[in-house]
């Protein structure tokens, strides 16, 4: 069966995969991969069981949005790691190390370095001030209606772009790994996501993420150990071999073309670091734990898992240079140096096949599918809560909505978001969606993060300042990306980009901070001085956690 699959793979002319941080390019449909499908069905059966159990525990809004605040630090750490490490982390970064060597490792550092900073400066304040969404914090002492509307708009922008990138990536990947039709794959992901979130809320979403994180960590570790055993677990031996066969040769371990100019390097660093601290689905995870103590522990565990797994991926990518890169079986027409079967993103999968056979390949493919499901579920929940908690309950109903109606709206919002995700996933099938992840991180870093951090740290922030800061960050991040090479040239096919850099953070973040500062400082309204005065109480609560939302009882 598997022989057949591989030889069929060989026959299919596969289009190259445009590699970028989070997206997979167009791919050809493969023969049905039964190992992967059976293992994935086991995963779905298990998570459906959990969703059924979770549904009986999801009664209040607190249950729905934050699992009643009863998740432990360790569980949440795993769930955050599960939320943060998407399929692209596994496939994209392995491929990046395989192709570019050291550059991939630099990327991983940029993805990781935000976590300690989030812990030191944000985690406990987030938990002490927030309840369901991060706009609970930004709107704490500011105008509820206006600030929440803004936060909801930028959250939904982030969620939508991230969701499109994930859906298109998912469709391509599933077509490739499972041999399912693209549209069927999109529907499967969208519908499963709706079921998890509408029935199981945050409880089910959290457990999907935890299970997936365990699968990812164990699967990756197993592949890495099996691969390293071929080099007697010696890094020197691995490097000797890798450098002697890689096209970069001795330059394999030098920083290369990915970060060629300082502006791009710094802007990318800023965007990944502070974008992480502004992603609504990540921030939301901080409200699921009992108290600030557990919030801190979650970051400790999450960053430990992320750091560990990045190093596993680095070793996987390096050993793949020899194990996959020197094996004609994995190249089109058996020609080493030509295109990899299935495109660049298949490196991790080929490595699994090479070191562990069909079973391990099937397992890793199921992990990749599970990973996508976990990430889109987290995104959908974050988007739904921006609609139901911020827009419906607080802005439209002005805090007068009943819990039952708020939950109803959030479930309805999840279904609408799922439907939108399916439609957009199908519409964008052939588009290069690589820029959308950059855009999501850019908007998170430039619109969400500045307002959030200022509202926690700067007494002088007023509603007017927050609105100007947030909206200018949102608009400038989107504009910079649209005018950059990744959209203006690659998508809209213009000759030259108007904005010379592909990373918006270095430019959009200062704009947001500056606008927030100018329009707060110049705000002399009565309302502004009341808001500034209210900072004192907020400050004591942020520091002590007194008055913070408590875990609900079960």
């Amino acid at each position, binding site marked *: 069966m598997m022989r057949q699959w591989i030889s069929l793979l060989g026959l299919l002319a596969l289009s190259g995969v445009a590699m970028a941080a989070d997206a997979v390019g167009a791919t050809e449909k493969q023969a049905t991969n039964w190992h992967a499908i059976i293992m994935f069905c086991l995963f779905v059966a298990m998570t459906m069981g959990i969703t059924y159990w979770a549904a009986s525990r999801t009664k209040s809004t607190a249950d729905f949005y934050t699992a009643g605040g009863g998740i432990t630090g360790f569980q949440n750490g795993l769930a955050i790691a599960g939320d943060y490490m998407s399929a692209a982390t596994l496939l994209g970064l392995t491929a990046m190390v395989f192709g570019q060597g050291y550059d991939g490792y630099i990327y991983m550092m940029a993805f990781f370095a935000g976590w300690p900073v989030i*812990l030191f400066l944000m985690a406990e304040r987030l938990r002490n001030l927030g309840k369901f969404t991060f706009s609970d914090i930004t709107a704490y002492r500011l105008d509820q209606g206006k600030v929440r509307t803004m936060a909801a708009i930028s959250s939904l922008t982030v969620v939508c772009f991230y969701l499109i990138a994930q859906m298109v990536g998912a469709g391509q990947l599933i077509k490739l790994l499972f041999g399912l039709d693209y549209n069927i794959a999109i529907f499967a992901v969208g519908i499963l996501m709706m079921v998890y979130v509408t029935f199981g809320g945050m409880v089910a979403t959290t457990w999907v993420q935890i299970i997936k994180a365990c699968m990812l960590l164990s699967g990756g570790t197993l592949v890495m150990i099996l691969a390293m055993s071929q080099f007697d677990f010696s890094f020197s031996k691995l490097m000797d071999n890798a450098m002697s066969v890689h096209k970069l040769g001795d330059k394999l371990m030098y920083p290369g073309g990915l970060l060629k100019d300082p502006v791009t390097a710094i802007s990318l660093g800023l965007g990944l670091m502070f974008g992480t601290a502004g992603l609504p689905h990540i921030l939301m995870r901080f409200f699921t734990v009992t108290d600030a103590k557990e919030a*801190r522990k979650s970051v400790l565990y999450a960053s430990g898992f992320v750091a560990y797994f990045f190093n596993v991926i680095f070793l996987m990518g390096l050993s793949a240079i020899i194990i996959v890169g020197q094996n004609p079986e994995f190249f089109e027409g058996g020609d080493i140096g030509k295109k990899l079967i299935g495109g660049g993103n298949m490196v991790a999968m080929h490595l699994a096949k090479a070191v562990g056979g069909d079973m391990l390949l099937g397992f890793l493919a199921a992990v990749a599918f599970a990973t996508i499901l976990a990430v889109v579920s987290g995104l959908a929940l974050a988007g739904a809560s921006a609609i139901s908690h911020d827009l419906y309950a607080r802005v439209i109903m002005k805090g007068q909505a009943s819990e039952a109606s708020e939950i109803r709206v959030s479930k309805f919002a999840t279904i609408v978001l799922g439907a939108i995700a399916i439609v957009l996933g199908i519409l964008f099938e052939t588009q290069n969606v690589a820029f959308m992840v950059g855009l999501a991180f850019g908007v998170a870093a430039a619109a969400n993060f500045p307002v959030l951090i200022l509202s926690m740290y700067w007494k002088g922030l007023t509603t007017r300042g927050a609105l100007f800061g947030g909206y200018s960050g949102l608009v400038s991040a989107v504009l910079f990306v649209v005018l950059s090479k990744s959209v203006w040239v690659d998508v809209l096919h213009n000759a030259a980009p108007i904005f010379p850099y592909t990373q918006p953070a270095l430019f959009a973040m200062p704009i947001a901070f500056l606008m927030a500062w100018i329009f707060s400082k110049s705000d002399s309204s009565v309302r502004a001085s009341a808001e500034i005065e209210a900072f004192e109480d907020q400050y*004591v609560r942020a520091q002590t956690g007194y008055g913070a939302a408590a875990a609900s009882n079960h």
Partner: protein
Amino acid sequence: MSSAMYERMRGNPKFGELVAKRGRFAWTLAIIVLAMFYGFVMVVAFNPLSLGQPVAEGSRLTVGVAVELFMFIFFWVLTAVYVRRANTEFDALTQQIVQEAWKENK
């Protein structure tokens, strides 16, 4: 009710102590991480060749890999150090502040 509680907590000298101690500690650690990370980014941007050198003659371990591996471990150790101190010393202090404010309330 809350506002009066907050007022009393703010008036407690221990609150000042907590804020000063924890603030200093958190910012010191954050600045270490930011300085090392952006210092590293600067080296990547301005002196990439230095990162490709082996750490010792004939070694296959390069400076860049060694530095990054060190940062992965060191940053994580810093988070552990912070969590340990915050979850014991700072949380104990916080509890005292809240309890003392409650007592005054009665």
